[in-house]
């Protein structure tokens, strides 16, 4: 077993980052000019890192498989971004954001990293405002905040329901500015297919030009991966169609460790599956839970009537509704963290109370909010005794202002009007807390290979709180990596420009070409899509919202069989030397299958329930998750080993500032 050194600096928790920053190695401007950095991915983490490194004077090469950096999936984040600004004077602080994140993560993240995240959170808001991000504002012209799932303060900054879009455009524009100066070289429609090591250090990547099919070798002094999460291993998820694990997985195959892959976040409020052709699931922002109330009918007869269309939700009497989150978790009600809300929805549906044809949906109801807002708005207009019509008019106006675009999106997809009838929602795979293992410097165990944003594992433990993904992506890219990368690069200033024709590069290139040729050579009968769907079903069934040892063992076997079948029977049309999306997918799905096996193994080995990882064997009598701090207060980091099978390494988590408690939202 490898000894994993997180390289957390000494000192008081609150001083670590400041002291460390003040004493870390720097690279002088004249040396920065000669140092090249490869950044893969242009989401919030990748784009902000590439832009900032360019501003600092490094020569940056940035890669994306999209046609433009602006299309990265960060763009789809709806709800908001947290920051410990305490603009609302409600008692927020760096410590409180740190504490909430640690607790929300079910005590499975690294204290020092999370505290640093909370510290730099405030800078992110300042930076984004300066870039022109149009955050929501109050009438006085100052920034507005709202509260978000799992916390009791209002620290979430937002830009309508399009916060991710506006933040990404900010980062994309900062990146574009560096591209214009020549400081950053932009490669679009290029996919990383391998990592190249020289003497154990990450020195470059092999890419495929997705338009021409050309395989290219790119060298640099170090490599930064900001390539997102692996939620698409489930096939159906809220991720974009192109999201994949290939860059990270290729790094794993070159020796990087995959940490806590079993920690996947199932988002409670997504539009339910409607048919077998379904290609992806659409998230409805968690902010909806601020005003929406989740419920299912108490009586089975009502459930039946709803399913066959003979009864409408609004005709079910108040006393016949089970607002199960409010009932079970009175302290947080509908605002419990995502893992808790998702599991509760599953339990409601498993017990036969699901409200659509498939039985896999619960109501998210805005009727109370419309009434409440309608009355208060009518009062503001001087109407003290409003009739129903007036209340509805004003109430719907307020709800439209807050959630208009989300309601519109819902109506487009389902054909139902959520102002008049409750939404139907169900949990879906949304985010992966696991990722490449990194130390305090965000460097993986492979020297010179860094991982930022969702691609790494470091900050969210076993469960991520709402509005924290955007925060982490930008914290890593703008304010952490640009500093910590110097710890590695300051030792590399004597290394001349790296050549891309060394034996290591040629060998890696050859391996990629062989991998592509091999996959074409199968020339079987089944489409890539059909394999991916099958893999997704296995993962969802056995490694989804709840897991047990028996199911996980079964899944191991099923995935192995599927993998074997894939390499025996997959069919890819067209040619490798052209624009060929089927080939792209095939390479990604092949990697997902290997990852899937490691996820299942990780879930099997973690004999406790923590955050997004719920093992049925480890629960209380009331069905709440039961951690095992004695044996599992650690990070499990997996090494890929073709001969022996994956090897589990461990980083013990030290909690010096926070007492481990049962995470209760009751």
């Amino acid at each position, binding site marked *: 077993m490898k000894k994993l050194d997180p390289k957390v600096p000494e000192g008081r928790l609150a001083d670590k980052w400041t002291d460390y920053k003040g004493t870390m190695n720097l690279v002088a401007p004249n040396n920065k000019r000669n140092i090249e950095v490869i950044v893969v991915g242009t989401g919030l983490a990748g784009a902000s890192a590439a832009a900032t490194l360019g501003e600092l004077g490094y020569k940056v090469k940035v890669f994306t498989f999209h*046609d433009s950096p602006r299309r990265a999936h960060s*763009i789809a984040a709806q709800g908001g971004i947290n920051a410990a600004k305490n603009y609302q004077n409600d008692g927020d602080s760096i410590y409180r954001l740190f504490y909430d994140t640690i607790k929300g993560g079910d005590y499975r993240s690294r204290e020092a990293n999370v505290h640093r995240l909370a510290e730099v959170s405030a800078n992110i808001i*300042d930076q984004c405002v300066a870039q022109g991000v*149009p955050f929501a504002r109050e009438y006085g012209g100052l920034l507005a905040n709202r509260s978000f799932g799992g916390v009791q303060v209002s620290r979430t900054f937002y830009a309508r329901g399009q916060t991710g879009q506006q933040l990404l455009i900010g980062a994309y524009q*900062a990146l574009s500015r560096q591209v214009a100066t020549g400081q950053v070289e932009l490669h679009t429609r290029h996919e990383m297919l391998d990592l190249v090591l020289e003497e154990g250090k990450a020195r470059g990547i092999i890419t495929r030009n997705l338009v021409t099919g050309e395989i290219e070798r790119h060298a640099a002094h170090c490599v930064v991966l900001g390539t997102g999460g692996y939620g698409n291993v489930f096939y159906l998820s809220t991720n974009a169609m192109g999201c994949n694990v290939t860059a990270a997985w290729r790094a794993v195959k070159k020796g990087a460790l995959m940490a806590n892959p079993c920690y996947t976040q199932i988002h409670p409020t997504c539009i339910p599956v409607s048919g077998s052709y379904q290609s992806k699931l659409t998230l409805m922002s968690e902010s909806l839970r601020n005003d929406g109330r989740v419920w299912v009918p108490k009586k089975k007869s009502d459930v039946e009537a709803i399913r066959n269309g003979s009864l409408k939700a609004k005709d079910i009497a108040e006393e016949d509704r089970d607002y199960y989150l409010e009932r079970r978790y009175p302290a947080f009600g509908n605002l419990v963290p995502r893992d808790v809300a998702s599991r509760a929805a599953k339990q409601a549906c498993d017990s036969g109370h699901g409200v659509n044809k498939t039985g896999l949906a619960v109501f998210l109801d805005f009727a109370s909010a419309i009434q409440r807002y309608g009355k208060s708005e009518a009062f503001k207009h001087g109407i003290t005794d409003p009739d129903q019509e007036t209340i509805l008019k004003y109430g719907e106006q307020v709800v439209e202002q807050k959630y208009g675009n989300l309601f519109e999106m819902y109506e487009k997809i389902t054909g139902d009007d959520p102002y008049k009838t409750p939404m139907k929602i169900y949990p879906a795979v949304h985010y992966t807390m696991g990722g490449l293992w990194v130390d305090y410097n965000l460097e993986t165990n492979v020297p010179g290979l860094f991982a930022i944003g969702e691609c790494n594992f470091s900050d969210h433990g076993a469960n991520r709180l709402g509005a924290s993904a955007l925060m982490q992506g930008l914290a890593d890219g*703008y304010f952490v990596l640009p500093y910590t990368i110097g710890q590695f690069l300051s030792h590399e200033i004597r290394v001349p420009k790296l050549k891309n024709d060394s034996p290591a590069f040629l060998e890696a290139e050859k391996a990629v070409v062989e991998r592509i040729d091999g996959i074409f050579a199968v020339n079987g009968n089944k489409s890539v*899509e059909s394999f991916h769907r099958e893999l997704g079903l296995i993962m969802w069934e056995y490694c989804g919202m709840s897991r047990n040892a028996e199911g996980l063992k079964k899944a191991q076997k099923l995935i192995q069989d599927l993998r074997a079948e894939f390499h025996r029977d997959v069919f890819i049309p067209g040619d490798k030397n052209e624009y060929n999306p089927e080939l792209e997918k095939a390479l990604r799905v092949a990697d997902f299958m290997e990852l899937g096996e490691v996820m299942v193994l990780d879930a099997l080995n973690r004999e406790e329930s923590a955050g997004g990882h719920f093992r049925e064997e480890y629960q209380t009598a009331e069905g709440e998750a039961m951690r095992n701090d004695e044996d599992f207060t650690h990070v499990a980091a997996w090494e890929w080993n073709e001969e022996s099978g994956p090897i589990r390494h461990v980083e013990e988590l030290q909690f010096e500032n926070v007492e481990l408690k049962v995470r209760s939202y009751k």
Partner: protein
Amino acid sequence: MKLTLQIWRQNGPQDKGKIENYQVDATEEMSFLEMLDVLNQQLIEEKKDPVAFDHDCREGICGACSMVINGRPHGPQKATTTCQLHMRHFKDGDTIVIEPFRANAFPVVKDLVVDRSAFDRIIQSGGYISVNTGQAPDGNDIPIEKGISATAFDAAACIGCGACVAACPNASAMLFTSAKVSHLALLPQGAVEGERRAQSMVAQMDKEGFGFCSNTGACEIECPKEISISNIARLNRQYLKSSIASSEINE
């Protein structure tokens, strides 16, 4: 529902390209792209070349999807991207014509996939605020009137899909360019370099080979994010002002 699809097939920018006919079975709940997925699965099973199209988020925000459906960019529904268009808006027996976004500045990569990197270059020419990481003052130091912030947002909502160009008889990129100029110029942080920005972005737009704006308003009608042509008016004012005020501004 049974549909006939007439789809533009073009194997690379040099190929002449042609319309081909396909039959597909769809259901009302499917999205338009899921209907195309079904067609592609069918083609792959027959060992034929699937139809290439750009797509990613499938929730109307990444701006990747780009096709002209029955003569209209992103199809018949108002304020809807192709990926958000659902088959309930079509009926059994319909014939649907699907073509790429057409413009000189958007060369075809394959079938319905076009190269929109010209948009990136327009942004690179000045579509940003010149601030380095770490230079920002506190977020609340500069209050911004709620209405102005909202108008800036309306412009910033552009997803860079290119429907405006595809809709325009001149293939002009004025709506795209003006949306960025407006977004930034309306905010105090961006107003500082507003005139320089207008000049250089317009110059780049012309260089890319987009046509001139002749105020047909087609862009606004087809824009899936309902970006208003009042942004074009705002750009014109900025541009004119900066042209008159100082001819050295870009030097």
